[in-house]
């Protein structure tokens, strides 16, 4: 997907940081994917809260389990891109900044994996 950058742009290189376009593009792509997923998630929450069904029954449906995994991946991806910008803006010490961004990426990856693992284990029990 790095082809979203033009060949000329890649040949010239991008400014001092040599990155940025990739971050920008993926922040928007994940945001667009999150629009329908958000609507699905919010309606699911309302249905689970207001009816007799519960989270286990809900995630034992293949469609909801699939969408939940998809949602977890895109949400943590979008969240890690977002928190990266916040850390870049507000942490002035370079070493700390790099460390916190590294830590945030690992935590987001771990969060997504733990979530996917839970959804699969609920689904497979059904």
């Amino acid at each position, binding site marked *: 997907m790095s082809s979203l950058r033009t060949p000329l742009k890649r040949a010239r290189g991008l400014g001092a940081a040599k990155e940025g376009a990739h971050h920008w593009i993926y922040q*928007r792509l994940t*945001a*667009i994917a*999150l*629009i329908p997923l*958000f609507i699905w998630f*919010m309606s699911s*929450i*309302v249905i689970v*809260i*207001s*009816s007799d069904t519960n*989270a*286990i029954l809900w*995630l034992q449906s293949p469609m909801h389990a699939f969408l939940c995994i998809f949602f*977890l991946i895109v*949400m*943590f991806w979008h*969240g890690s891109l*977002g*928190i990266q910008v*916040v850390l870049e803006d507000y942490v002035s010490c370079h070493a700390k900044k790099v460390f916190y961004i590294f830590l945030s990426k690992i*935590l*987001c990856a771990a*969060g*997504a994996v*733990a*979530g996917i*693992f*839970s*959804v699969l*284990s*609920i689904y497979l*029990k059904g």
Partner: protein
Amino acid sequence: MSETTTTKRERPISPHLSVYKPQITSIMSITHRMTGIILLIGAFVFVGYLFSVAGLQSCDCIGRFFETIIGKIAISVWIAAFYYHFFNGIRHMIWDTGRGFEKQSVVNSGITTLILVIISLAITWSVAVGG
């Protein structure tokens, strides 16, 4: 060497946020960031909830937390933050197409966003409580 000492002096810095009057544009911009952080925290709590629902941990701490009044307030805050980040995110994507940057339209889209958040919250509240 005298030039080096000059550059070490206190340089002017900007922006001086405190001298600005709070405006709908600046407040909504920082709120977008804050709701983003709140939602990322919520994402981890949601994963913890899924983890306990899956029976992968012995204590259902998060499920019990959701039953408490503080837990219910937290869920309400997350839902509100979700709606805000959703509608304001769409506003950002419209800006990305190069549209809506005139002073009046920035204010108008901000007000529209806030109204949509309130309406969505009211609908969610009435369905979740009444339905």
